[in-house]
């Protein structure tokens, strides 16, 4: 549907209020970009889950260190009833790489969060088993392969 993203924008604004930093529709990506404060990431995903009536498919979480003093987390969601791709972005300062885990809303993230943790060192609070996924067991602590110096 054409204007579904407008309804999503409205309800997100009601749920998150000023925690919602930016929300706009990207026509070239055919996706709704939602920029939120890191404290509200759990609330944002929860709100989107509520908007879709529990019919939300979490595609992936992608973390990126862009050489600045923050790490960017991108959550790719697909809302089935609205048939809408939602990209939720948040920025984590490198001094405090803690963010609330969303495993309780979307159990699918259990592996993605572990990957972001081991590759970039982001700590997901509330994750049931935040351990190494791909890297060998004797990989040194506090060394994150995809971090940029």
């Amino acid at each position, binding site marked *: 549907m054409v204007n579904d993203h407008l309804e999503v924008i409205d309800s997100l604004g009601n749920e998150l209020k000023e925690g919602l930093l930016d929300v706009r529709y990207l026509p070239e990506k055919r996706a709704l970009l939602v920029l939120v404060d890191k404290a509200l990431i759990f609330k944002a995903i929860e709100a989107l889950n509520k908007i879709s009536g529990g019919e939300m498919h979490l595609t992936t979480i992608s973390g990126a260190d862009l050489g600045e003093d923050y790490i960017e987390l991108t959550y*790719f969601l697909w809302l089935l009833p609205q048939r809408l791709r939602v990209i939720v972005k948040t920025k984590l300062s490198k001094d405090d790489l803690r963010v609330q885990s969303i495993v309780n809303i979307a159990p699918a993230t259990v592996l993605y969060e572990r990957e972001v943790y081991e590759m970039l060192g982001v700590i997901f609070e509330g994750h049931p088993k935040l351990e190494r996924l791909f*890297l060998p067991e004797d990989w040194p602590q506090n060394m994150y392969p995809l971090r940029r110096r």
Partner: protein
Amino acid sequence: MSSIDLIVGPIHPALHEPERFVFKIDGEIVVDVEPRLGYVHRGIEKALSERTYIKDIYLVERVCGICNVAHTLTAAQAIEQAFGVEVPRRSKYLRTIVHELNRLHSHLLILGVVCELIGFDTLFMLFWRDREVIMDLIEMITGNRVMSAYNIIGGVRRNIGDFEVTQIKGVLSSLAKRVKQYKKVFMDDPTIRARCAGVGYLSRAKALALGAVGPTARGSGLELDVRVDEPYAAYDEVKYCAVIYNDGDVWARLMVRLDELLASMEVINECLDKMPSGPIRVPVPEAAPQSAEGVSVIEAPRGELIHHVYTKRDDDKPFRYRIRTPTYANIPAVCEMLKGCYIADIPAILASIDPCFSCTDRAALIDTNSGEKRIIDILSLARRSKK
């Protein structure tokens, strides 16, 4: 309740690629599964951000040998989006055709493998014989049977003419008859029903929550198909309906694949009929014209594949490249399916998601020489290989 650990893998006859699963079993029943990934972890994500975009296309092709077209297509689309390049319409059709041929051979492969694992070797041989003609078609169009090297940034590398069109149509029309026959076998054959029906059940709610993708999701009645949801390449101009089965077992997942074979052939035929004339590629400079972000989602043979790339202005290397492959998304779902099944059903259930573990483990090249860890760059590796 006490339980025994049964360790399957990393190297195991039932697994075609190295991966370890620790099954907690109670008698014959699997109670819990603990996957351990990373045995074929090659550090591709890191390597991608240290190569130029042109080299990246060939590296992502090697994330997975079977769905190589899907990977190059996604990478090309993601990079084109970040560059702001619009590809010609004919190249979109050609991409779709090769992508669907790739899906045909991938589905025929896994159907054969499942048949072998459930002990139906004849059908395995038949499937793989039919797969061979698809491989020949891919060789005819792209120049190689497996590693097609077909998609590049800005379009595709080779054109097809009238001769190729008639060849493809001829092969597909004879293959369609055979696939219909195989479908009848899958519907009726008691052996297949006994080994597949009701095995490895995954409910729709679980599939959604655990983020299952592709035929795994569609076998559980989840309407997820990127070709329908977010049409890419030429899918917005051809008719396509997602194949959905509601049974949620191994049989449903195989039936989804069988029906998709027929649907794919229709898509290819429609593309060949509708294909416009025009250029097949546009020249694209090596460096990114802008700092941007490209996201491309496509329906690979195994499910939804997503590439996410950050480009930096005037740099010929991507800043960050992230790949999420379908098998990786299906791991939580397969763990759920395995709970409560018999040990003997493990291979069939694992094969029913069409696992591709080299896809799953891709992201840092680590050398464990002399106990210390350091990262070797590819050029010194190349030099070393000369000795």
